[in-house]
């Protein structure tokens, strides 16, 4: 465990030393994402009306929360690091370590969260002054604690779901397209693009069963007081179940991949 946090610390220091262009691009990315969502909400939701259970301000708050949640869940992409380790033969040294490669990389991902957490705190601090607390939204210490737990699981779930995709690098020359495909599916079915309540009613059971909701929308719903304790417990159980499935799948892909890994790069 000490090794885990030591790796996370090294990664955090590395990421925090990024230069001004990194912070500038982060601000622009946040502003643009929120700007597009803001105008879509304005065009969609009447001033006094409701949509998907949200008032106009409520939906804006949902978008702010989910964009910030996504930053923590995604962390900073280490996608290429894993595939590059495989392509360039750098994986060999990790195979000699007495710790699992996946655990090492997850520790690095946790460390890489540092700038994202700083950004989330900064941006979140501005929200009450801009939006206030819209009608029908209840944020309490209890919902905040529930959301924190859900975000931690969401981060692990995202890593575990994408890990076997990154390991496709053992067989394919470029797994970037697959990761991007996963991102598209996750943003749509995770509620990052639109609140899931806007999806047709027939799709709701499917959305609840798939892992994507638990990566983004679920922590936000927990924060905004939109899930009951029973729904929260059920959701966390489903998310943890998906973590287990992804971990088993990852172990299988890792075993098959390392069997044919030559250690000389591709």
């Amino acid at each position: 465990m000490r090794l885990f946090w030591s790796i996370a610390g090294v990664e955090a220091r590395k990421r925090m030393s990024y230069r001004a262009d990194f912070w500038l691009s982060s601000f622009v990315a946040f502003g643009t994402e929120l700007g597009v969502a803001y105008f879509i909400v304005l065009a969609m939701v009447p001033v006094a009306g409701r949509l998907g259970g949200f008032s106009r301000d409520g939906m804006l708050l949902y978008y702010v929360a989910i964009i910030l949640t996504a930053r923590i869940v995604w962390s900073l992409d280490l996608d290429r690091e894993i595939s590059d380790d495989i392509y360039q033969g750098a994986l060999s040294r990790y195979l000699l370590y007495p710790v699992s490669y996946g655990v090492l990389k997850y520790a690095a991902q946790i460390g890489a969260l540092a700038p994202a957490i700083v950004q989330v705190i900064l941006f979140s601090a501005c929200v009450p002054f801009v939006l206030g607390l819209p009608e029908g939204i209840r944020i309490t210490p209890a919902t905040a604690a529930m959301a924190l737990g859900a975000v931690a699981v969401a981060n692990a779930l995202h890593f575990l779901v994408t890990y076997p995709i990154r390991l496709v690098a053992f067989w394919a020359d470029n797994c970037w397209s697959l990761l991007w495909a996963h991102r598209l599916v996750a943003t749509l079915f995770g509620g990052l693009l639109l609140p899931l309540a806007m999806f047709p009613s027939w799709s709701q059971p499917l959305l609840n069963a798939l892992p994507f909701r638990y990566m983004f929308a679920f922590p936000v719903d927990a924060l905004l007081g939109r899930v009951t304790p029973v729904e929260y417990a059920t959701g966390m159980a489903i998310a943890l179940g998906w973590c287990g499935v992804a971990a088993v799948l990852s172990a299988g892909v890792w075993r098959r991949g390392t069997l044919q890994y030559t250690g000389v790069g591709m």
Partner: protein
Amino acid sequence: MIRYLRLYGYFLRFSFSRAMEFRFDFFFRIFMDTLWYGHHLAFFWILYRHTPLLGGWTMDQMFIFAGGVFLADAIQMTVLSNNLAMLPNYINKGDLDYYLVRPVSSLFFLSLRDFAADSFVNFLMAIALLSWSLVRYPAPLGAGAIAVYVVLLLLGCVLHYALKMIFTIPVFWLHTSFGLREIFWSLDRYTTRPHGIFTGWVRRMLVSVLPFSLIVSFPTAALFQGLSWRLLGHLVGVTGAAYLGMLWLWSRGLRAYASASS
């Protein structure tokens, strides 16, 4: 001109033969772009379940707009993307020398050398989706209006290229493209949304200083509302200004380029 066309023919032949060496990536990329199309269409389809109009356009009109976004993106990904992605590396490592000593325009060579053959199938898919959205449109659009739309869309692609270069060329002085490239990709989101949803100073910015809304949204507006001299002048004027600005920046950048020590 013929010399440039023949040279481009060689680029194409080389790019296709190289793409077929990496078959996994070839199919992964088709899969990814297919999902991207589905992602966009699903987004608008869900939105229109809750509203009859978005930014003044119906769902049928929005599908044509989405088809235009797909085609503009496919042209960018197929013809330019690989080349512009490599440009910062060439500048920082001094590899630009190789292009500067060729007896052709360095900008032509650098921008068009690598044709992304693995995106070519998606280019065909984008054409098919745009055709489908035009065919299913309930009112007659007219061949002339569609031809004008396609020409304006190509003009939008030129504007997109110029904007992307403007965000890339500062690497001559900054030595890193990370920040500006990320900013460009963030702002490029505005290209994928109709300009009618934006209001106030944001809208004014998106049709002038950061003209991302002109790339697809204006050609689509011309298709539905008819081409006015004002709209055409605006699109041509902004595209021309962006292109000339890009050429000026490029010449300044080349002057600042110090080969391997850059």
